[in-house]
């Protein structure tokens, strides 16, 4: 029994005598909960934007009920479905043209287009997108027989290239793999080398430190290209996905993304020699972006103030513009902004990281 208690006591001591671990194990989850809690305040109080298209533009403005709905949407209350217990969903109806609607869909601003044609409602969305399907079922149930939709309600699957969920998903996954590869490969790799005293052994030679770090970047970039190539190849054959915009624009965003994440990786790995702390550090960078940056689902469901921040995250920048090249056909001029911003981020993070870098 004494032995057992001693062992437990040692375990506790090991834990609390490592301040880094306390942070990652105790404070970090609390901070994540706080952050996400704010983002999803009032659980279920979701806002879904719906693109509303009519073949006859004046029809909507003439139709009293639809007009009211759009006015309510402009006040951000929208068409509310659900109840306080289950959480409410506010459907914001945005009257747009068909082309604008498709653009919104591609960017992930909306997941559904409602088209009014000959007084009947057509819901256009990718049936593989569970959120869109849920919206459809909710709206259909609520609208059926109401004065808004007196006529038939139809569902039209969106299977046009660029509007499917998979079109949205693949560019995001591509960017996420760059982030993961840099953060685990470079950041964790460097921390591991420091913990093994290999880093200090290497810098105790005439090895050039910038060459060492540049090699990390180039090796990761090479691996990244290979990974991206394989992913795109697979998706081309399996999902018929292709790059509709400029390939050079894609390459620029891809390289800039690698610069940004290498910089962040160097910064993250600059101090600790504890792989357990390193694990946490990498996660603190990777996890929020995985959740927030719109890789798996659109970040446009977050409150507006959060969206403004999320848009500036490196993974969001990279994913948004990779997506725009893939599905909206963006060219080089369209990606200058993210390329510059990502490169600046990378250079700034490396510069700060190197100033405080612990080589020994």
């Amino acid at each position: 029994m004494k032995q057992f208690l001693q062992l437990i006591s040692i375990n506790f001591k090991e834990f609390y005598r490592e301040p880094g671990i306390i942070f990652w194990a105790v404070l970090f989850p609390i901070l994540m909960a706080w952050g996400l809690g704010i983002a999803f305040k009032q659980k279920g109080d979701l806002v879904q934007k719906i693109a509303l298209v009519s073949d006859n533009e004046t029809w909507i403005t003439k139709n009293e009920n639809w007009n009211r709905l759009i006015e309510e949407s402009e006040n951000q209350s929208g068409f509310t479905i659900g109840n306080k217990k289950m959480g409410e969903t506010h459907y914001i109806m945005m009257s747009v043209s068909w082309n604008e609607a498709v653009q919104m869909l591609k960017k992930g601003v909306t997941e559904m287009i409602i088209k009014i044609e000959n007084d009947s409602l057509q819901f256009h969305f990718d049936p593989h997108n569970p959120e869109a399907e849920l919206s459809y079922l909710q709206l259909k149930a609520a609208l059926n027989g109401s004065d808004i939709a007196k006529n038939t309600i139809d569902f039209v699957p969106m299977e046009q290239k660029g509007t499917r969920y998979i079109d949205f998903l693949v560019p995001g996954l591509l960017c996420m793999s760059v982030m993961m590869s840099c953060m685990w490969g470079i950041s964790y790799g460097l921390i591991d080398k420091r913990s093994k005293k290999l880093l200090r052994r290497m810098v105790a030679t005439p090895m050039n430190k910038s060459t060492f770090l540049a090699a990390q970047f180039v090796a990761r970039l090479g691996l990244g290209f290979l990974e991206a190539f394989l992913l795109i190849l697979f998706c081309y054959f399996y999902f018929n996905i292709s790059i509709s915009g400029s390939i050079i624009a894609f390459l620029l965003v891809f390289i800039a993304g690698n610069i940004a994440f290498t910089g962040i990786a160097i910064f993250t790995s600059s101090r600790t020699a504890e792989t357990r702390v390193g694990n946490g550090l990498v996660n603190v960078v990777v996890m929020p972006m995985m959740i927030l940056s719109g890789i798996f689902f659109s970040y446009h469901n977050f409150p507006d103030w959060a969206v403004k921040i999320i848009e500036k995250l490196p993974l969001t920048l990279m994913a948004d513009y990779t997506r725009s090249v893939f599905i909206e056909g963006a060219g080089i001029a369209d990606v200058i902004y993210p390329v510059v911003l990502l490169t600046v981020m990378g250079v700034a993070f490396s510069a700060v990281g190197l100033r405080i870098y612990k080589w020994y």
Partner: protein
Amino acid sequence: MDSKTAMIEVREVRKYFKHVKAVDGIDLTIKKGEFIALLGPNGAGKTTLVEMIEGIQKPDHGEIFIDNKTWKKNEKELHQLVGLSLQETRFFEKISVLETLRLFASFYNLDDQRIDEVLKLINLEEKKDAWVVNLSGGQRQRLALGIAILNKPEVLLLDEPTTGLDPTARREVWDILKKLKKELNTTLILTTHYMEEASYLCERIIIMDSGKILAQGTLKELLSKHIKGEVIMFSTQEKFDEKHLPSREKVHNVMIEPNQTEVEILVEDLVSYLPEFLNKFQSEGINLTSLECRKMTLDDLFINMTGKHLNA
């Protein structure tokens, strides 16, 4: 000592950590081609001192010159001049011996011929394609040594190069070092807590504890200067009390183990003391279960100076 032939000069060097005075005012001059051993238990400050000479740590106070150069002003040249092996470096696990040597050789702009020479010297030719993770402890230490000598360094700094190795593996490392001394006139600082290693390899032994140099000299000098006397080790059936020892003035030191049956005493002259000792035990009816007499060693000297065993 003539400063012209001095390869390494350590002047009034201090390094304090939060609760420890790791190196507490050390002066040291090492001549070109000299092999010296820093001997001391764990925590004596050996590694800190060596790491300051290696340029890995900065002294709080004092100066270190290697070939009249300092790390602050001549880092590049010193990296070319110095070879080192750190305590417990773990190299890339899934990279082979040859690949590891090639990587480090590239830092010094060395060609494959030098790698072959080193592989031969460290006796890892057969293992050159093996991953580091699959090497034995001794082979890893030899690899670390191989990396340290790649650039034919004039100064070699080895931090516990044989700790944890079995006697055969240790002997192999020693042979390599002996060869280096003969062929390249390398200056060597080696930290160890093996007295045998220090006395076999090095001309000068420096005994350190608590950040200070306690004694230094050749093995002979140390023994003759600091050690006068011989050791009697015995154990008794009953618990032993110091008062049973005859002619207490002839005994320099008494160490009774906690079980109170194993005893070590240091006497000035064994030949005259031993008969007296045995007679007294016989007359008092003390039963000896073992008895051993020997010359004093560095370890005994160490215990005398610090109250600690060398490899404690």
